[in-house]
């Protein structure tokens, strides 16, 4: 029942917001929906912890620890972003950016706020659906749904660059998802011989996972390659990452934050599901090698762009590429440690990344630019809270202790060593160090420095509290992970490794 409720709440909230006239009401609807969603996600976690898995409609919807984790993270991200969005769009409205966007948008531009508050719940709905769908085809449909909903978010401001970004996003995403679909079809085909059913259940993951040992191996190999490329495109793994910087730098900040965390989680979730099938069918070696290759490639590709970067919002995108690379690498290293590292990393990433976006958004809204050159540094003088949070979250996101990424990266490194990939682990650490250096140099020069004489930022409470609150959560996460959450993660690890 909870599964249905989880889906209905966002699905209902979208159209409801569409019907409303006043900005205030739309905000309330969104906030309420996501608060409820988060609460229900917690309930789902509790149920999953108690029962192992929850399913509905004859296994059409299915939630085990892995999906519960993704649901929880998606709900968390949605909630946090919706809180921030209130402040963000009010600022946009008062500074006239929204009106401008509406003019540019021409006849397709409905009232912009409504567009956002309607599409976001649908976006979230697809994310939740990704995690809850048992059927791999439905999973694909849901991932495609996230893309479609988010294309509008990317072209939200209607600028030339937004269109460009949206086009690239849509086309590359479309190609990627076609590959994923091809992979899904081939998976179905490879299972066909073993299962021999034409029924709906033939694509259900829970069924497939049980029989994966008997799948046709060559088909599965090809299927995994296609799925890896397909969902890898969605996750922004190099060399399919190219849409990311454009999309992230054009979407409104809350949307970009959800893209960078929620969608990434969904894509990786899908990848994990297929990875399980592939390693059961082909043994872990085949998938691992590819995953390690792509993981390291992503990190390596992110490095030069992080070292030399003019635009702080694009910087965030490259950081996201780096992180998806890390997670894919962790999956590739495999073993209980690698998976644990990956899921921990996913959790921390979902908690940490939004703050990075919020800080960047505050800076951009205040200075009306996203270029380092124009920002001139010395941010700490005009916006102390954002500046401090920006610096802190930069450290967090680059894996500095005591922040929690250090735990996951340490675990991943251990996994790398125990999987015997010594040289690759060294490379991993080198990339981490380089990325840290590049990132910190940029942000430190942005935040610190002499007072450039910019007027004090006047931030409303929504923005301020979401930044401060999230910063608090991140700080606490460095020292304390709630026991149920960790248990959930461990159960999920169990599913991936042994289940």
């Amino acid at each position, binding site marked *: 029942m909870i599964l249905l409720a989880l889906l209905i709440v966002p699905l209902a909230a979208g159209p409801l917001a569409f019907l409303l006239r006043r900005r205030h009401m739309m905000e309330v609807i969104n906030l309420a929906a996501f608060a409820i969603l988060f609460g229900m996600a917690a309930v789902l976690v509790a149920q999953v912890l108690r029962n192992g898995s929850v399913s509905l409609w004859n296994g059409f919807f299915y939630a085990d620890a892995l999906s519960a984790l993704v649901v929880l993270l998606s709900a968390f991200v949605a909630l946090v972003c919706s809180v921030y969005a209130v402040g963000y769009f009010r600022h946009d409205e008062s500074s006239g950016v929204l009106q401008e966007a509406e003019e540019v948008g021409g006849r397709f531009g409905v009232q912009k706020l409504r567009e956002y508050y309607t599409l976001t719940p649908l976006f979230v709905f697809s994310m939740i659906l990704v995690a809850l769908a048992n059927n791999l085809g439905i999973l694909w449909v849901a991932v495609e749904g996230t893309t479609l909903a988010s294309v509008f978010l990317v072209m939200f401001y209607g600028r030339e660059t937004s269109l460009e970004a949206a086009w690239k996003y849509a086309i590359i995403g479309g190609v990627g998802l076609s590959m994923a679909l091809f992979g899904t079809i081939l998976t179905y085909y490879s299972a066909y011989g073993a299962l021999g059913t034409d029924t709906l259940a033939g694509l259900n993951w829970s069924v497939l996972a049980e029989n994966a040992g008997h799948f046709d191996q060559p088909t599965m190999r090809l299927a995994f*390659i296609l799925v890896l*490329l397909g969902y890898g495109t969605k996750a922004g793994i190099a060399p*399919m990452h190219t849409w990311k910087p454009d999309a992230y730098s054009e979407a409104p900040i809350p949307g970009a934050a959800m893209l960078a965390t929620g969608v990434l989680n969904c894509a990786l979730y899908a990848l994990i599901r297929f990875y399980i099938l592939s390693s059961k069918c082909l043994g872990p070696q085949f998938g691992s090698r590819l995953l390690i290759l792509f993981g390291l490639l992503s990190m390596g590709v992110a490095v030069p762009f992080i070292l*030399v970067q003019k635009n702080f919002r694009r910087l965030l995108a490259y950081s996201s590429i780096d992180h998806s690379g890390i997670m894919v690498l962790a999956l590739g290293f495999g073993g209980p440690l690698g998976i644990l590292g990956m899921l921990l990393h996913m959790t921390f990433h979902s908690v940490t990344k939004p703050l990075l976006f919020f800080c960047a958004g505050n800076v951009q809204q205040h200075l009306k630019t996203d270029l380092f050159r124009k920002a001139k540094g010395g941010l700490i003088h005009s916006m102390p809270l954002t500046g401090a949070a920006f610096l802190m979250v930069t450290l967090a996101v680059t894996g500095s202790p005591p922040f929690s990424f250090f735990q996951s990266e340490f*675990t991943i490194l251990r996994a790398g060593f125990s999987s015997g990939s010594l040289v690759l682990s060294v490379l991993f650490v080198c990339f981490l160090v380089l990325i840290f250096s590049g990132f910190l140099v940029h942000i430190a020069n942005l935040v610190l420095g002499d007072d450039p004489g910019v007027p004090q930022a006047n931030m409303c409470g929504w923005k301020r509290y979401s930044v401060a609150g999230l910063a608090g959560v991140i700080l606490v996460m460095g*020292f304390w992970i709630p026991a149920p959450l960790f248990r959930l993660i461990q159960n999920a690890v169990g599913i991936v490794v042994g289940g």
Partner: protein
Amino acid sequence: MNTFPVSAAFALSLAAYAAGGVASLASWRRPSMARNICCGAALAGGALGGLAAVLGILQGTPVHWSVPSGIPLFAYSFSYDALGGFFNLILAILTIAVSVYSFGYLKEFEGKRNIGFFGFLFHLLLLSLTIVFTAANAFLFLIGWEVGALAAYGLVAFYHEQRESRQAGLLYIIMAHADVGCLLLGFALLIQGSGSAEFASFHTAAAHLSSARQSAAFVLFFLGFGIKAGVIPFHIWLPAAHPVAPSNASALLSGIVIKAGIYGMTRIFLDSLGGVPSWAGLAVLIVGVVSAVLGVLYALMEHDLKRLLAYHSIENIGIILMGLGAALIFRVAGHPLLAGVALIAAMFHTLNHAIFKCLLFLGAGSVLHSTGARNMEEMGGLIRPMPVTAFCFLIGAVAISGLPPLNGFVSEWLTYQSLLAGFGATGGLTRILFPLAGSMLALTGALAAACFVKAFAITFLALPRGAEASHAHEAPRSMLVGMGTLTVGCVSLGLGVTWFLPVFNAMTEQLLGQRVVANLITGGGFVLSAGTPHSGTVSTAIIAVGLLTLALPAALLVSRATRRFGRKSGPVWDCGLPALSEENEYTATGFSKALRMIFSVLYKPRREIQAVFDVSPYFPKEIRFESEIEPTFEKWLYAPLQEFIFRISSRMRTIQAGSIHAYLAYIFVTLVLLLLFGVRK
């Protein structure tokens, strides 16, 4: 004998640091309150930490605690043993002195800078150092390590409005992160062997490591800790970072933070790793020699007082490494007694350097506080307005130059002795390296003396060279007390070394399985010996007494003579020209000119003289002289590396050229390649 409340004192000191950090941050709007909280809590924490260290060392047996952490993967386990206790002792001494000093020093921050945040960083640094010295778990160790680095970064970049500080801070944190990277890899290697992150489990795991892995672990840890300690060629951050921090922070940075690297090496190489490869000790020794000699040579060319001190930190780290390297070699060669002496030399020098370097930085801080200048060429004559500071600085200068009877001499003496012993204790050509290292130590000592003659004389003696220097005033009393404490430390550790040495008994027993201090003390407890009865002895106490007794009759003689024949004051002879002015004085540049010429192969000095002529080419109106030395490592190692990385980066950046066709083509090519890969059976 578990009766000492070590854990209580230790926990309280941690709590004091933590509370002090949070409280000063919380009170940042009220500067004077923040200042009192910051300094008071640090003083309390330092005192408690010192108590814990003394009790811990007295107790002798290690104490373990394990605190469950909020992170299920890791445990916070602490172990208070002799080695950690000793470093905590150093930390406590410095903390006490620096926090007393800061009462006065931070006063000028009021209304200008955020004292609350300074206090937060300061306490964070102290807290993390304490954790590093007591962590018994790789994870906790790394957290403490990196948090310390972040706090230090905050302190280095504290004057972030200045570009220099920002750049130095970034250089520092990048290097610090690189060292964390090395440590991560090193620990991962050990953890993989042992299956646990506890230090205790490394003992057995290290024994089973293959020799290649053992070597890899050694290299990784040596890199990691070496960067932290600032050994050459990983030193470039140190002279950039330490000078730009507020002086009380610089004192801690040079005094104790870089010693964390020494701690780490000692802990890992002697304790955890058990057996290091046989060449490891030699590598440490050679790196030590290079660091010592080059460090002091670069220091000589420096005219910025704090940068000069920073370079001396590199030199002294080198000296410490000589002792440590010798200890490693002896240990592998099976001479625990000699290893003990060498270890004591290294550890004692660590303590001594901490004390006098902290003292010197505090002295430089007082000068900076009073004159606002860091360039020695603008100082001069400060001994008159600032007599106490000058005296303390002089003591520090004598101590760091390794001159008897102060503490620097004692530890250098012990280092010499262990190096000499190496000649007899090792075979082959390596034995030649020991006396050669000894002679390089002599060179280092003599150059250090030259450098501190320059530093002290140009800063404090003769006539003021600038307006700031002539309006200088003595530092407030609390700052003097802070420096005074350390001055007393320099003297008493020098004279009372034989009473202090038993502190090392527990440490050598723990690390080398043997108590060696009894062999080091003869002659009724006054005389320090080098371990064997005939090897060599020295008594700083007697030297001090002897100096006084011999100078006394001379003083009587002179005073009688002056009473009879008069004593008057007159102008300095200046070749008959009227009135000596500050322009006639020897400058720091001039002082080091001879050495610059002699070591020009190394410095590759560049100089430029521009003369402005008015009427006749024989009477220049103005001469501008510029001289700089080539920063070898920056130019030949780091700049090319950086350039390489950036060149590759800019080349790679063209992949994101904005063309969607290119983007699609990447995917297409990948797809085709992978399809071919997938088809292959």
